[in-house]
């Protein structure tokens, strides 16, 4: 080659600086410490681990074979469970859309309305569905009505939060164009923004319905209707062969609802 002087390029390249590498190891050490601390603080009875496999085998033996004769009895409560989830989700959707517009920074009227919207989100989300169930059983008495209310109360925050985020991320261009036509604020919402967040609204609704089917199956534990009461009763009676039937039935429903949810979400565009 003709060129006499060859430029030297570096042969060593590292993604992280030594400082970054040290920081990473520090984080790993911190997590290890936190885990060790948790284990020591929880005072776990390690002796129970010794015969855990024996206990598990014993339980399995008592559950087998499933008592299929019990199945006809739980079909109605199983359907009720799905109804609770469906109605609860439907009510939640209706309330979540206006709350989402309140809680999104770009559509809320002022700081106060935003705080109200966010407050509803936090209140709804920070309480577990079963706890909501306990509260609503106290209000409506035991039964599916309390279950529906519990599912709605928990789902409103979940749906509204995700829809509010979608509203905040909505494309500004079409919104500007709709504003420029002389449309009112609410017209901008329903024509410019709502179509943009529709895939998120539908997707999260179906996903939440799927979660609600699962959560409704334990609402019966607190008397809020559905299959849970049968599961609870069977466990209390040590009727393990019945418990297995109930569990298998719930499993079948959950698998089906997840399939429906996945199928719908795949088709939204």
């Amino acid at each position: 080659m003709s060129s006499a002087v060859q430029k030297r390029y570096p042969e060593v390249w590292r993604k992280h600086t030594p400082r970054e590498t040290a920081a990473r190891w520090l984080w790993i050490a911190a997590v290890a410490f936190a885990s060790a601390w948790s284990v020591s603080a929880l005072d776990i009875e390690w002796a129970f681990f010794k015969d855990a496999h024996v206990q598990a085998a014993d339980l399995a033996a008592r559950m087998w074979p499933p008592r299929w004769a019990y199945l006809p009895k739980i079909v109605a409560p199983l359907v009720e469970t799905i109804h609770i989830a469906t109605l609860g989700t439907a009510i939640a959707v209706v309330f979540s859309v206006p709350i989402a517009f309140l809680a999104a920074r770009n559509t809320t009227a002022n700081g106060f309305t935003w705080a109200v919207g966010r407050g509803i989100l936090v209140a709804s989300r920070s309480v577990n569905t079963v706890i909501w169930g306990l509260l609503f059983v106290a209000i409506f008495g035991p039964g599916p009505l309390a279950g529906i209310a519990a599912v709605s109360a928990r789902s409103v925050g979940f749906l509204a939060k995700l829809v509010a985020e979608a509203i905040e991320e909505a494309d500004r261009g079409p919104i500007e164009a709709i504003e420029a036509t002389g449309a009112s604020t609410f017209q901008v919402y329903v024509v410019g923004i709502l179509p943009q967040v529709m895939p998120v609204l539908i997707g999260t609704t179906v996903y939440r319905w799927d979660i609600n089917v699962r959560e409704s199956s334990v609402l019966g534990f607190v008397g809020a209707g559905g299959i849970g009461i049968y599961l609870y009763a069977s466990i209390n009676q040590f009727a393990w062969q019945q418990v297995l039937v109930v569990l298998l039935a719930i499993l079948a429903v959950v698998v089906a609802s997840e399939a429906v949810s996945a199928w719908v979400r795949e088709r939204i565009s």
Partner: protein
Amino acid sequence: MAAAREAPAQGGAGPLLAIEGLAKVYPGGTRALDGVSFLVDRPEVIAVIGSSGAGKSTLIRCINRLVEPTAGRVLLGGTDIVGLGTKDLRQARRRIGMIFQEFNLVDRLTVMENLLSGRLGSVGFFASWLRRYPPQDVANAFAMLDRVGLSGLHDSRADALSGGQRQRVGIGRALMQNPDLLLVDEPTASLDPKTARQIMRLIRALAEERATPALVNIHDVALAQGFADRVIGLKAGKVAFDGPSTGLTPEVLTEIYGAEDWSQTIRREDEEEAGA
């Protein structure tokens, strides 16, 4: 060609549009517009040219107050838009159609829904929510679809169209307002050169048919010369040139954009005109 359906109502003898001392200072302190004044006293196509950041986009957004001007007046048919309250501003916006660089269609809605959204200022909330527009609006929308060359695509979703088709819907939406003024923000910057010329030709033809003045922000000097009657050159938020598009000499372009060899830009247009 579809006949122009209705001539825009232009009462009074005053100018169609008067901009007086318009200024905009953004919160960061950027002075985007600095005392811009001009008159539009007849329906003509006006190209607004200038470097990026010269204030073109701010200028047209101050006219319909998508951007709030800091000072100055915008008189549309005698009404000062700058002083209007929310409700009156909405009424004023109905009279101003706007066309965008990125088309700004609502992607998940159909072509028809996008066209009819130009009528939002004239229909109630529930009618717009349920998409129940007056029969006359629907008929006008189909006629408009025909006029912009998209017959049969009314049920297509906006995001299924090509760039040129999307801009045609954008133009149709703006004209569905029967505007007294068209604001056009870089209508061709997202399009290929051939489509860009077709779109400019369509905007020009529609503005002439309806005797509607159009203010067109445009980067492409050759397109500005080819399709505008008049050119306003902005430089650092001020009007540096205002005159017929034939007056765009290398000296004027240097004044607007800074020193550069402009002979190619101008000659290219001459050749195209000769070949047309």
